């Protein structure tokens, strides 16, 4: 049984079909990448899985349970945590308090929430900034905090929506290390990413969306040779990106 299974998921916004009959599976312990051009429906798919939008049709199964259209808070309690593409930290709260809010997902006691939060901050390399206001962090640290918040809810599936966008090379490399560390700790990862240098080396499988449809799903080595994927998305961009490094 797959950890996460999306069956025939369709999402319409008025006349626009953002997701069209999408099927995919994420197995326990995997890192699955989700790529596609802008507007392909990646974030919409994330939102449907995480309970932010109710799908127009289709189902989402998690750990053998139908979680379709459950509210986001219940989905989080069941073990799916997600980060937002545009970071959503609580800017008037300290870094520690931000992560404590998340840690309360699994406990009612402030002391144990604080302990968990400090562990996660240490894990993410933010512990020295724990007393700073989240609003005053750099974008890289905000992304890190967003990541820490998701981790502190103690998920079994972590969904990262462009966790690397806007980061420089060093920061990206650090973030990749962090993702590998998380996966080593037994958490399954499903990520949307535009930075191919990130997705390709770390993903076990890559799913490609275009105009709301799934056009390919394979191991990274095959994806980069897939004609349709190159035409729709990788093409120029991937080669251009390769040239840069």
């Amino acid at each position, binding site marked *: 049984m797959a950890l996460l299974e999306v069956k025939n998921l369709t999402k319409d916004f008025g006349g626009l079909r953002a997701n069209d009959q999408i099927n995919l599976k994420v197995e326990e312990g995997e890192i699955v990448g989700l790529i596609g051009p802008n507007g392909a429906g990646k974030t919409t798919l994330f939102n449907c899985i995480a309970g932010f939008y109710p799908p127009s049709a289709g189902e989402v199964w998690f750990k053998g349970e139908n979680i379709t259209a459950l*509210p*986001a*808070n*219940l989905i989080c309690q069941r073990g799916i945590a997600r980060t937002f593409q545009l970071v959503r930290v*609580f800017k008037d*709260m300290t870094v520690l308090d931000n992560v404590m809010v998340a840690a*309360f997902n699994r406990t009612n*006691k*402030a002391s144990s929430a604080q302990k968990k939060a400090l562990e996660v901050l240490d894990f993410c390399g933010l512990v020295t900034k724990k007393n700073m206001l989240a609003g005053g962090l750099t974008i890289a640290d905000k992304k890190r905090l967003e990541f820490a918040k998701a981790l502190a809810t103690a998920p079994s599936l972590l969904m990262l929506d462009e966790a690397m966008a806007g980061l420089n090379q060093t920061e990206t490399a650090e973030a990749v290390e962090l993702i590998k560390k998380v996966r080593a700790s037994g958490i399954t990862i499903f990520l949307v990413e535009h930075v191919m240098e990130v997705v390709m080396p770390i993903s076990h499988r890559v799913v490609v969306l275009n105009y709301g449809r799934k056009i390919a799903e394979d191991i990274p080595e095959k994806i980069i040779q897939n004609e349709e994927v190159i035409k729709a998305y990788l093409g120029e961009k991937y080669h251009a990106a390769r040239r840069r490094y």
Partner: protein
Amino acid sequence: MKKNTYQWFLLAAGVAVLMVYPLVLKLPFPRHLMIMIFLYATLGLAWNMIGGYAGQISLGHAVYFGTGAYTSTLLLMKLGVSPWAGMLVGGLLSIGLAFLIGYPCFKLAGHYFAIATIAIGEIAQHWMLNWDWAGAAVGLTLPILPESLINLQFHTTKLPYYYIALAIFALTILVTYAIDRSKLGYYFKAIKGDLEAARSLGINVARYKFYALALSAFFTSICGSFYAQYVLFIDPDSVFPLMLSIIPCLIATLGGVGTVWGPIIGAYILIPISEFTRIHFGGGGKGTDLIIYGFLIMIISIYQPFGVIGLTKRFRKKEQP
């Protein structure tokens, strides 16, 4: 550690001063002034739970204040129930009302929520103005009972009122402090910060908004019952006016929203201004205090949006770079 002892010392000194104050100042006015400060500070603290911590600006809190005042008074007049029991019933009734009001209104965001609560406050006031059984526009004069703690009436001295108000005030501070340190407080602040992010972290937003409003309504209602017993006359214009909804908000905003001490500081600044302008200008100066409030709020929001509390933090930061 050292800072902690210093804080405990300050707190103990504060408590001692408040305990001794009415024994030193025996005239009715200084005692009345403090009772009003306690009452409004409690209202500010109660409003702060929903408006400050959870960030849902309610401008209809007079509904809960009036519910407290009318419930304890009507129970006393019609059934002879002790005001203390009436206070509790009023509080519970206000929690029920909070649910009825919160259920539809919490679907509204930001300013729309504030507008809806204003409308509900106005509806409540007009309802009470026309409800004959509850005294309508004439209001209710409480029956004069023998002086006793059980009857919560004292005619020769304000001293017992002072200590009762102080006790209610202290209880509200303790509850606020407990909220501030617990899951509730963190969740309230998260809801204020970002609804979607709060949801994604497993917070049942609707439920926690209701908890905040229920707590807030309960303590506001207790203030209403106390006010009725203190003044011994209530009418819709004195316990249901829009101003009564706005003042706790001003108090909390001036002092610093979403903090334990903000509303207390706010009340200590605003209520003396209000009482002294009333003395100086009498009836003709009605609203002078509000003009001053408005001016203070403008200054605060321009220079220090976190209120007077934010100001103290700023100075402290300068001391230790």
